[in-house]
């Protein structure tokens, strides 16, 4: 009797654990005319940020010492977020392009 109940608790827990990675979301940032939009996004650890570059020139999403994502013209590039914090990123080729990534 006791053992049967424990088993059920265990089953429930497994379900929750199995369920959580599937909830990771993909958040898209569009680049057009040298502007990141939205300029600020808030995501959770494990989520994926995907940049869609609609310009004819290459851009990057860069945080010195953290990440440096190359985004080809007319293409996309993705980053799986691994740590919490506030990341002010910019484009290495056009440092006037700035945006913010909040990770919780």
């Amino acid at each position, binding site marked *: 009797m006791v053992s049967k109940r424990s088993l059920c608790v265990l089953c429930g827990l497994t379900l929750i654990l199995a369920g959580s990675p599937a909830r990771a979301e993909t958040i898209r940032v569009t680049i057009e*005319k*040298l*502007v990141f939009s939205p300029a600020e996004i808030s995501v959770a650890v494990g989520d994926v940020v995907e940049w869609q570059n609609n310009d*004819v*020139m*290459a851009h990057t999403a860069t945080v010195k010492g953290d990440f440096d994502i190359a985004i080809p*013209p007319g293409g996309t590039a993705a980053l799986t977020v691994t740590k919490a914090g506030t990341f002010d990123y910019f*484009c*290495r*080729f*056009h*440092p*006037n*392009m700035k945006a913010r990534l909040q990770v919780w």
Partner: protein
Amino acid sequence: MYARLTSALALACLINGAALAADNKVTDPQIAHIAYTAGVIDIEAAKQALQMSKDKEVLAFANDMLRDHEAVNKQALDLVKKLNVTPEDNDTSRALAKAAAEERDRLAKLSGADFDKAYVANEVAYHKQVNGALETLLIPSAKNADLKDLLETGLKLFQGHQQHAEHVAAMMK
């Protein structure tokens, strides 16, 4: 240094002169030609740097300029074709091209770190001047909405390049 100042001054005078000429109205075909010429000039400067420099940062910067300006000038050509506009040569384009040729001749006499410094310093000055021309003359004068839009994107691009060049210049010190 003196030569660089002279050349920057020539460009400043030219743009002021062009601003005065705005009373006579710069036409869209002329604006298209000036914007395209401004891109070609930076492509030529980048090609010279790729031949003459050995500095990794300078070469990377020159490659960035080459790639961006070729891409944007291709976009500009597609646009004028779509709009059925034939870019028209004019005094501003000619003066820009002349000042740029003089600058290339001056840089050709330099080598090593002297060349690198002069190239990057000129890139800062040049992008600054073009930004001024875009803001005060070309964008306000453009009639066609698509052309105006392309020039506005061009302004953001040139501003980005200016900051990039300033960053490279600061690292060389």
